């Protein structure tokens, strides 16, 4: 198993770049904390019905995602340098049918969260409510109206096994106004917390507070907003 410090080297294998712009790494710390400390899923349990699910909704810029999955040995590191080639399973947007551990194929924005609502319902219906569904969205991705359908509905029915982590790099042209993204979710009944998207301890704590089995008072779905540097 690789360490966090080795992730930039894995990303270099993917992109060929020695240095990584903040936009390429906006999701890196969140992904690492999830796979290192939070998600109950491993290369051996990717087919386990009761596994936790991580859905990368914001599918573009997947280098950090692939680096973390390789670091956690979901697929061999030897796949990385061939990124985007005709013979590589790793494309500019991930495909669940090509990459072990990838739960959804994404790329078009605004699909991951609505799908996650269905996965969460399905797990509850199957008596697998201890498994949790985590879905990563970008702040600009929330522009897509399909997210609003899911946010209002999931809050109204109080889906208890759903966590959205929104990477906020302030890239939405019109933003979310006073109160930010979390106000948009909270008004629909979500619990919401904002932490630094670079602070591993704070991220882990935010996920833990809201995670299943933590005895959380919050019965409904939860939002973790992870603030990272602006793209500008």
């Amino acid at each position, binding site marked *: 198993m690789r360490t966090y410090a080795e992730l930039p080297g894995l990303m270099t294998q993917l992109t060929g770049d020695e240095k990584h712009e903040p936009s390429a790494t906006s999701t890196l710390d969140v992904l690492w904390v999830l796979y290192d400390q939070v998600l109950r899923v491993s290369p051996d349990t990717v087919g386990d019905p009761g596994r936790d699910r991580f859905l990368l909704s914001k599918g573009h810029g997947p280098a950090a995602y692939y680096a973390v999955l390789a670091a956690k040995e979901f697929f061999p590191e030897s796949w990385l340098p061939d990124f985007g080639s005709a013979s590589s399973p790793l494309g500019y947007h991930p495909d669940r049918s090509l990459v072990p551990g990838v739960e959804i194929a994404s790329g078009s924005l605004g699909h991951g969260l*609505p*799908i996650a*609502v269905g*996965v969460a319902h399905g797990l509850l*219906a199957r008596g697998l409510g201890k498994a949790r569904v985590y879905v990563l969205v970008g702040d600009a991705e929330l522009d897509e109206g399909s997210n609003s359908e899911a946010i209002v509905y999931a809050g109204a029915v109080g889906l208890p096994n759903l966590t959205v982590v929104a990477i906020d790099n302030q890239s939405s042209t019109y933003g979310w106004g006073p109160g930010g993204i979390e106000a948009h979710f909270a008004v629909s009944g979500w619990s919401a917390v904002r932490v630094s998207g670079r602070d591993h301890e704070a991220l882990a704590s935010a996920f833990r507070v809201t995670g299943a089995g933590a005895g959380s008072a919050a019965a409904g779905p939860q939002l973790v907003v992870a603030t990272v540097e602006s793209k500008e």
Partner: protein
Amino acid sequence: MTDMRTVFAETASALLDEDPLAAVVLAEISADMFGKAAARHPDRVLNVGIREQLMVSVGGGLALAGMRPIVHTYAPFLVERAYEQVKLDLGHQDAHAVLVSIGASYDGSRMGRTHQAPEDVALLDSVPGFSVVVPGHPAEVEAMLRGAVGALDDGSTYMRLSTGVNREARSVSASLQVVRSGRRAVVVAVGPLLSPVLDAVADLDVTVAYATTVRPFDASGLRALEAGSGAVVLVEPYLAGTSSHAVAAALTSRPHRLLSLGVPRAELRRYGTPAEHAAFHGLDAAGIRRSVTGFLGLTS
């Protein structure tokens, strides 16, 4: 007679009782018909409100969690409004669901263009892995729905319910069924257009074959029936020409002529009854007869 929609709701409710992995996803439409089922299975009858994108995505998510989802609303909102969700959250994810629509083509003749989607089968036809079934009678609905749900391990199905019905039900088959035989042409009647077709060609020397499964199209069945007349008439209750390419592919190696009847592309911009719309579109018995006799060079 119980209508297709009612048979669908009763059958889906029974499936919920029988199969712990079955689920129904709704967007308000028909929610009242699932009241009892929802009371028995609150975790598997999901009404997401007037949110059709979410409805289809939830169907995809349920499938990814190992469930067998049935997703249902009016055709334009199920297929057109949520088309990218059908393409990506079902098709591209390789997540399987049974989509069941009501309001076929001009069933909603009085409601105007917003509630009409004769393009539905053409759109679904472009998503890999979808079967398309078009019942012609309420008594055919139960077997079709059970078959579609039973086939979810293999793929998704679009089931197209209509208020238009044939006089009699037929046994449900994925193959073309010969209703009567003749020599001048093979007329393929899809779903609820069988009765008008039979009326239209009653005294003509043509074969009439009944199709309820239109995707995959029964190519070998058509080849067996076509048998040298070289003339095929396709009568579909949705966009004209939707299955022309399937007929052309089935008969690639044979010289043939094809007449494709269905709902034209042009907007009608009229209200009135479904029967009136059928006549406007040339899909009533008189209109079909006009087209077929013209195609075969007969005097009507």
